């Protein structure tokens, strides 16, 4: 079978920095071809060249064996190439039908927009994918998984033959992932080729036919998914074998540091109870919408606790705002790094020291020296963050390095309990293991950690115990020897 897409010896430089070195890639019709590599490996550059966002310096792109002249986004689209970005590009206040046909509306004979016809066709597409949605629903009413499906339908309506999915599952729950995989299967059957970018190995097992690995802008290898395993892929990605991906030793004592009894908050946290031991890593499992992040927000003073009790070191406490939470010894690396974590325009220095800035500003005499030393100590020594200057804005860093800055921020200020909400989301493999090692070190030094994660392997490997939540209730607590995906899923889908 001839490939429907061939990218041959693609080169690309930004100013003097070469980011792609003779990278080649091919895609068959009806194939899911995964593209993996650490952040900065060149995946997104390659995809942007395919999508016409960047121009290539040299190399050929062949579609159905013929030279394709991709110079900008519309020309890429005319070749049937469609990219579904991590940040979805839908108009929230328009209907599903309007979004699907945005940019290529169906017109009546008079040249007016034919909304009825659009709605009819859109409904047909929704039904075709077994989505119980109405074409007239507004996008703002849909959840992220549903919005993603609309993006896919939109690509199809454009006549896309090659669909690129950039981390499509990064904000989906396991259940929603299955809906996506169903759709991918349908697309495959209809002969669409899919380029699939993901950091999650377990997904590749399910969905990918072949995998191409990039590292530092070089093509490394293309392997059939059924002939390889995670360990081989990870070692191809990082260029060395990874003996220990997860690092975990028990460091907890029997002392109870935090006790949460029957707390309720809003519509998301209905009745949650658990205990936390000193030096423990307590995992929190559950589907999206189980109320895990919302419960963490209660403990961090971001949401109000309506009823129930919280004891810290045996004393009852009430946490009214974030500052109080911080003073009591809490810290939190938030779920959505871009929205809740970083200050994109500000320098790395400002982003690192925000929680402890009083130390340098307090008396009005600014101690820049101390601020530099402290920021550097954590960024360089503790976390090995890669940056060129403390004064550069944080937005210029990769996701993994941004996360390290956020970690530094909280390591500088957290006294007792550090809440980690999806700490490795959208982060490359190498930084992931660094974060795992850090978590282990921190608990060894006496910090206690609450880890919220949607990646079960991460929870199972990193936690001492796992609390499972479902629909706002804590439905189960598992000790390390009881951990299994099945058990967790049983509790996570429990109806209360």
């Amino acid at each position, binding site marked *: 079978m001839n490939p429907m897409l061939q990218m041959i010896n693609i080169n690309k430089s*930004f100013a003097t920095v070469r980011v792609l070195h003779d990278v080649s890639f091919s895609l068959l019709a009806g194939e899911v071809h995964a593209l993996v590599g650490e952040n900065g490996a060149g995946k997104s550059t390659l995809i942007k060249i395919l999508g016409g966002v960047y121009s290539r310096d040299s190399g050929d792109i062949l579609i159905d064996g013929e030279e394709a002249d991709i110079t900008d986004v519309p020309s890429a689209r005319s070749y049937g190439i469609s990219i579904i970005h991590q940040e979805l590009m839908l108009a929230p206040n328009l209907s599903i039908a309007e979004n699907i046909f945005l940019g290529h509306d169906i017109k009546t004979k008079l040249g007016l927009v034919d909304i009825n016809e659009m709605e009819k066709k859109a409904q047909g597409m929704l039904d075709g994918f077994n989505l119980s949605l109405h074409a007239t629903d507004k996008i703002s009413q849909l959840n992220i998984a549903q919005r993603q499906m609309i993006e896919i339908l939109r690509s199809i309506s454009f006549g896309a033959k090659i669909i690129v999915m950039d981390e499509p599952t990064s904000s989906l729950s396991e259940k929603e992932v299955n809906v996506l995989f169903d759709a991918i299967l349908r697309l495959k059957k209809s002969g669409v080729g899919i380029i699939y970018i993901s950091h999650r190995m377990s997904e590749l097992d399910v969905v990918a036919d072949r995998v191409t690995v990039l590292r530092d802008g070089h093509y490394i290898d293309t392997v059939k998914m059924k002939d390889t395993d995670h360990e081989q892929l990870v070692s191809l990605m990082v260029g060395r074998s990874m003996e220990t991906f997860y690092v975990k030793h028990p460091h907890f004592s029997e002392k109870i540091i935090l006790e949460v009894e029957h707390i309720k908050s809003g519509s998301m946290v209905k009745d949650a109870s658990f205990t936390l031991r000193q030096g423990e890593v307590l995992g929190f499992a559950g589907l999206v919408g189980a109320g895990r992040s919302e419960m963490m927000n209660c403990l961090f003073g971001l949401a109000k606790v309506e009823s129930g009790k919280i004891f810290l070191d045996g004393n009852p406490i009430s946490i009214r705002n974030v500052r109080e939470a911080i003073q009591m010894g809490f810290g939190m690396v938030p779920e959505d790094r871009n929205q809740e974590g970083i*200050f994109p325009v500000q320098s790395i220095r400002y982003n690192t020291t*925000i929680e402890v800035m009083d130390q340098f500003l307090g008396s009005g005499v600014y101690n820049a*020296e101390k601020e530099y030393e402290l920021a550097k100590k954590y960024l360089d020594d503790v976390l090995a963050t890669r940056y060129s200057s403390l004064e550069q804005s944080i937005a*210029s860093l990769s996701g993994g390095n941004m996360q390290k800055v956020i970690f530094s921020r909280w390591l500088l200020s957290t006294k007792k309990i550090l809440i980690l909400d999806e700490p490795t989301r959208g982060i490359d493999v190498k930084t992931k293991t660094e974060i795992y090692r850090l978590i282990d070190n921190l608990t060894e030094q006496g910090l206690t950690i609450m880890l919220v994660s949607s990646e079960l392997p991460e929870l199972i490997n990193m936690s001492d115990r796992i609390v499972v939540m479902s629909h706002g209730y804590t439905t189960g607590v598992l000790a390390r020897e009881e951990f299994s995906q099945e058990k967790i899923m049983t509790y996570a889908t429990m109806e209360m």
Partner: protein
Amino acid sequence: MLKIKRSMRMLAKNVRECLGILIVLGVMCIILVCLTDKFATPPNLFNIIRQITINIFIACGMTLVILLGGIDLSVGSVIAVSGCISAGMATWDKLPVPVAIVIGILCGVAVGSLNGFIASFTTISPFIITLATMNIGRGIARLYTSAKTIAVLDPRYTFFGTGKIGKIPIQLFLIVAVVAITSFILNKTRLGRGIYFVGDNEQAAKYAGLNVRKIRFFVFLYSGILAAMAGILSTARTFAATMVMGTSAEMDAIAAVVIGGTSMSGGRGTLMGTVIGAVIIGVLNNGMNLLGINTSWQYVVQGVVILIALYIDYLRNKGGLIKLLKNKRIK
């Protein structure tokens, strides 16, 4: 040693950020020195200082507001309210001058607090809030004065407009003071740094435990107080207060801030830039007066300068983008 090196480096960074407009200012001055004999004389330079004082006061407050991602349209009206009421208290009601001045400043406190209160407890956009208080303020000035001009002749009051310390006009000292205080707040206090954080990403500021409401409230309050002071200085300089004084002063201040490179979307900008921006506007107007250019043209030229400043900012951002991409790959 290291400390000096670092602070030099930070100063250099500040200068670098304002380099574009510093060059513009330099070129303007050189041209004016070549074209007129009068420009570089002490009386003319002092005159420029007197002319830009009002704008610098307002622009200092406006810098904080814009860094926060907001805007304050009410400052022009606050000038009128504080100018008229303090003048009325001093001239009509024969209150002691210090009391009249304090009452004038309290007018700014009132309007600033109202702006700040609404801006921190609702999600109504500052543009709309201050548009409303702008109209309210102008109306109050009209009601209070009954459209009459209030003359102020008490030398203790007019000292703030015409006084000198040695040979140097009082305004220079006032400018230095207001810039120093604003700079201190912005760079050396938790609150000031908070302005940058909230302007950059309000959600993240909440997650980081900053008191977003307090910061918002303070910024609008500060802007109101500085505008009230500007109203008193303006009255003191012209010996009179009218209900139309300060009309479109907010636009001059916004122009200074924007020329100074502060981003209208918040989070990025320097006070130094704003001061240079205000000086550019002052030198431009003064130069065109010296050259005998018609006032109508002065408006046109000022508009063009703003566009050029924004274009420079745009180019710099684009450069920043390239850097951003490069850094991403280097890692």
